[in-house]
Every structure is written in structure tokens, then in C-alpha cells.
């Protein structure tokens, strides 16, 4: 288990990406799976800055990676306002260009590319987001 705390601003995303990508690589995920994990964490951290902190440099993002034989768990903690994913619209990926809205795309990507996503909020810690990616079972 490794935890690193990053300043809650957009130029932290590169370092957060490197940190998570390295954990995914050590866990033995494929290049594509590493990319999926990195993208999901990038989207989650962007949402933290945008929705929980409502701007840059308002607080930190604590990122923990837990490597297990068959899965990687990423936990993101912030101390901003409670984030309720139910308020985020679900994008219609079949919509025509004119009707296409880009709201909610980040959360959509996270839900498609991670196996488990759980949002929690406590007064003591703030928002706690737990995401799990499992390794694809190889055929015997």
C-alpha cells in the first residue's frame, strides 16, 4: 500500500498519472489496462477539483494504491464539499453531433473502465472514492 498526497490543482494530474500507472504496472496490468486506470483516476481527480473543491488550490488529494494479486484498488480522499454522483448526467454516446452533450463523460469513463466504484462522504475525512480494477481472467 502506497499513499501520496498531491496539491488539488490540474498540473498535479501528470504526477498522479505517473504514480497510478506505476502501481498498475507493478500489479501486472496490460498497457491498455494501465491506460484505463490512469484515465479513470485522472477523471476522478478532475471531478474532485471541479466539484468538491470548486476550483484549484483549495485542498489536497490523497491517493492510495493497494496492489493485490488479482486487482488494484485506488482510493482518493479530498476534504471538499460532498460529491454526489447522482447529480452528474449520464451522457448519451449514441446522440447525434448537434445533440451531443459532453457533461458527465468523465464519470462515464470511470464507470466503464473500473470494475467497482464506491463514493462515500464522512465529516471527518471528506469524500472517499474507492475504485477497483480486476485483472482479466486468462482462458485456461
Amino acid at each position, binding site marked *: 500500500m502506497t499513499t501520496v498526497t498531491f496539491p488539488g490543482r490540474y498540473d498535479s*494530474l501528470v504526477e498522479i498519472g505517473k504514480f497510478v500507472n506505476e502501481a498498475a504496472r507493478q500489479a501486472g496490468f496490460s498497457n491498455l489496462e494501465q*491506460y484505463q486506470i490512469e484515465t479513470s483516476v485522472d477523471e476522478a481527480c478532475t471531478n474532485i477539483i471541479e466539484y468538491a473543491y470548486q476550483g484549484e488550490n483549495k485542498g489536497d488529494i490523497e491517493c492510495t494504491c493497494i496492489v493485490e494479486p488479482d486487482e488494484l484498488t485506488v482510493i482518493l480522499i479530498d476534504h471538499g464539499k460532498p460529491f454526489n454522483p447522482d447529480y452528474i448526467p449520464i*451522457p448519451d454516446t449514441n446522440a447525434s453531433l*448537434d445533440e*451531443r452533450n*459532453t457533461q458527465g463523460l468523465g464519470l462515464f*469513463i470511470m464507470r466503464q473502465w473500473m470494475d467497482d466504484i464506491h463514493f462515500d462522504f464522512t465529516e471527518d475525512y471528506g469524500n472517499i472514492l474507492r475504485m477497483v480494477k480486476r485483472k482479466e481472467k486468462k482462458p485456461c
Partner: protein
Amino acid sequence: MDITNTPYKHCDLVKITGRVDSATSPKLGEVLDKIIEEGRFKIVMDMSELDFISSAGLRELITTQKVCKRYNRGEVILAQVPEKILYTLDLAGFTKLFRIADDVISAVGNL
């Protein structure tokens, strides 16, 4: 992220290198807006050196595509898209909204 724009007679070739995330996507938006402000609506995006794109970058692409395609005056074509970037575009439903070209020359020729 590095971004270069090469204006040709009938289209603009925009090459993005590196990483497009929430920190860098405003710069991409600025470059694309400037092209549109000059009344140019045919854009080829060379993605061969693009390492990463998040939804913030996708948002810039779709905003530009909407403006360019209005009144049939132009289009954004995505060229030489790396496999992992293509996965993101496909997941977001963007492969239905953009033409994807195997190489930059044919994309420029098709505009």
C-alpha cells in the same frame, strides 16, 4: 503538451504531442478557436504523438467539430490515432462523430 498548427491552402493541420488533460486542454481549445476565428473550418488533427487524452480534451474536440460542421462549411478529421486513444474515442461514442484517417496525407486530401 505541445501543439503546432500548419496552415495549408484549404485546411489546417494541427499536431498534438504529449498529454491532453484538464491542465492542458484550455491551450488546445485556444489554438482551435483561433483557427475558427480566422474563418477556417477544415482541420486535420495529427494524433500520432498523442500519449493521453481525458474527457477535458474530448470536450474541446467536440465543441470544435460542432462549429466546423455547421452549415456544411467544414469538418475536423482525426488522423493517425494511437490504439489507446482510439479506445477512449470509441468508448465516448466519438468514432461515430469524427472521420478517422489512417494517415495525415489522406486526411488532408479528403477535406
